């Protein structure tokens, strides 16, 4: 079937099978490999994108369902060719290690701060609960979101004995 979906502000029209997921569509039909598959079953959040402004696991959405809708992925996070406040904060606060969970985490964080511009640590945890990270242990990610939203951002610094 023909799928027409606005991705990161630009219309993307492709002929695609009915039995593929949005994740698969993004990666193999729209050429956007930033969104990753971590489990295929809606548990790990690596595939998180914004669908009509809401964070969803794209592995559990059929491409067919997004015809006529609007999707935002990590590739659309930059602002006028410059890193967004989230991207800058993630870099500065060392919230990225292997990077495989990162696109999903950033999109979840983006959705969070759009609905809650100054989230508390608890609210950040609620918003990012569905994103697994095996590398960072999450603290630097939480600090990055605090920093990106102009809030004091040190949960605990490294100290010398």
């Amino acid at each position: 079937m023909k799928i027409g979906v606005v991705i990161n502000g630009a219309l993307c029209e492709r002929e695609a099978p009915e039995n593929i997921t949005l994740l698969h569509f993004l990666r193999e039909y729209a050429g956007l490999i930033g969104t990753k598959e971590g489990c295929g079953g809606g548990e790990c959040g690596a595939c998180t994108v914004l669908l009509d402004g809401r964070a969803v696991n794209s592995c559990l959405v059929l491409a067919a369902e997004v015809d006529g809708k609007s999707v935002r992925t990590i590739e659309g996070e930059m602002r006028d060719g410059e890193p967004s406040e989230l991207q800058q904060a993630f870099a500065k606060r060392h919230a990225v290690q292997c990077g495989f969970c990162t696109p999903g985490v950033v999109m979840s964080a983006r959705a969070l701060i759009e609905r809650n511009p100054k989230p508390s640590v608890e609210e950040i945890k609620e918003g990012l609960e569905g994103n697994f990270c095996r590398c960072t242990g999450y603290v630097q990610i939480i600090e990055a979101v605090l920093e990106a939203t102009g809030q004091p951002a040190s949960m605990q610094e490294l100290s010398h004995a």
Partner: protein
Amino acid sequence: MLETANSETLRQIGRSPVRHDVADKLTGAALYVSDMILPGMLYAQVKKSPHARAKIRRIDVSRAKRLPGVRAILTGHDLDYRLGLYVVDKDILAKNEIRHFGEAVAAVAADTLAIAHEAVELIEVDYEILTPILNHMDALAPGAPLVHPDLASYDFVEAAFSPQPGTNIANLTKCRKGDVEKGFAEAEWIVEREYTNPSVQHVPMETHVAIAQWKSGDRVDIWTSAQSPFTVRDLFCHTFKLPLNNVRVVIPNVGGGFGGKAGIHLEPLVACLSRKAGGRPVKFQATREEEFSLLPCRSALTYRIKTGVLADGRIVAQKMEMFWDAGAYADYAVNVTRATGYSAAGPYEIPNAWVDAYTVYTNKPYGTAYRGFGHVEFFWGLERHMELVAQTIGMDPLEFRRKNLLKPGAITLTGEVITEHNGDVRKCLDSVANAIGYGALTPAEKAREARTGLKIGKGVATLHKAPAMPPFTATSVVVKMNSDGTVIANVGLTDIGQGSTTAFAQIAAERLRFPLNKVRVTIEKDTDRDPYDWQTVASKGLMLTGNALMLACADLLDKAYQTAAQALRADVCDLDHDGDKIFIVHRPEISVTFAQLSIGYSYPDGGAIGGPLIGVGRYTAQGLTNLDKGSGQGLPALDWTYGAHGIIVEVDPTTGAYHILKIASAYDVGKAINLESVRGQCIGGMVQGLGTALCEGYIYDQQGHLLNPSFTDNKIPTCKDLPDEIDCIIVETPQLDGPYGARGVGEHPMISVAPALGNAIRSATGAELTHMPIRSEDVWRAMNSKPPVETWITKTPVGSCRSLPVDR
């Protein structure tokens, strides 16, 4: 090799510059093998056994073969290669016998993933189901069915390992120090207990994936998500008897490894499929479920410890028996056994010690390297045991540890003499004890208990680890100057997320005295282009490759100075440099820029001297030895990283539910190169250690089916599972032969989190936990002296909410 620059003059080391690899990861531009599509590429799928042990009577691939778009099918009998890092015991595809649930029986390469998937469903396999041997302690019993009846005929690395043919023992490592029976005779108390851990999975966010292309003339290109391109290449060539020059291995970004991507895994299979498909590239990516059972996990462990101690708290003797459940194949497990054998007593001085460590075969998914290389597993038992010994003799557990900690002059199990330069385990332990207010509860904590009805407890645990690596481990680095004076370093060590790329850029910038933005360390690894490094494992990369890098920088400067001396008509000894130029010390206005020297220096009349500036450095571990197979004596340790954790836990005495109020962790890192990267390892490792403690663990039924092959029932910590307060403390006792005094800390934060938690829970409630994971039900049972649940090989019915059907 240490550069003793003091902290005030260091400009790059000890700061936290933004990491160089993250910009692309944050925009989606970073490429992983998962993302790669090559021209003409085929997709592979694998037929997996639903049984834990079975004879393969017949495989019928005829219907699969006829499916349009299928380009290659392989079964075990098509491939006559054995694999095995240390004991060569594995076929690429099971030949006559299945040895674990999820084992690969056949593989297909097809034009699309959907066709490959359908083809696999069309392959028919006739099994004769056999009774599996699942429990490793049962596997040791005389007369137990043998997982590898032909063990006697397998090749193995004789220098290090001792398989026992006719049994299920893939290796037995012994370590003997002093006279343990004499020690027990002197002891006033003898305390014995057994501790256990299940298998767990690494859970890298990117599952294993590899692409291979077998071209004409037996030249093979491989792209893989792995922890070393050289290890993959070398093991691959060893298996297929190819010259190393024939094979090229490329590793772009890696979505996590944690030991599971060390060694070699999917590459031989995809390469054979490519060869069968006439040389088209073939890609196979494991699903998450396949990651849990087709790919290897971490061995389970039963650890029996018997300690003899004097009334004043000094340990006089300790007998340690480790029984490692390696699953169906030896892979890295035999080496985990060997490496933990010599480390098994922890950072304590034990005058008389006996270690017997067994690697046991069972019919389950097999164990491979995992962060900590056995230390997470055995420290659970060891640090719970230290607590028990202290309790038994009526001594405070912190005091007991302090009394027995290794001090300068102490002798390890292998006969190594510890010096003050190894690190300060006492400082680590004291730091965490202070940070959690170890000992009595504070008035605020008591008030909290009274208000909530919950019990608060505090516990500590120590840790240590040396890199588990060959004593001759080597690495090399090439540093090249571009014509504008910027520098690119080719480093063979793979960055799997730990931050080596940036740490090396900092080290190079520091050594060269260049601004950081003039230095780039390559991210993609390529055996054709990069100089040799062994592997990203063992927490040795920073030390060995950091040293090689510093030597390469020195070499580069040396060559630059040689040309500059000529250009400036000066002696090398009268020259110095800054970030842009080399100048005469006593006439600094006379100078030549690095850019001018970078690809040869040319005089005004056009003539040139010198040439492209390339620095080469290599570094090999110094002065280490193999371990004697009988006594376990030798010098295996490049360095020791010591550490400790302190935990404050709050436990609900009615339900067993608990919450960590605070965890303080300390490590003697020698010198922190990038502070936030060190913190990232500390917290990331601690949370992974928490996973092992809280909720991770493979569960099988009595037939050996893995009952939790997905995230539904194989949970890992989320951000909501963090302790309330997390303290990361570093001690910096310089490693004399480490770059700027640094030593590794990649694995260590995971070690001993679980026993610190177990000790804190005991302190809060009296509950004695000796097995893992520690779920609320486990705490409740221990508090109420109920028998623990036999979870790992469960007798209880699966029930209604199971994750996946047993199929295919």
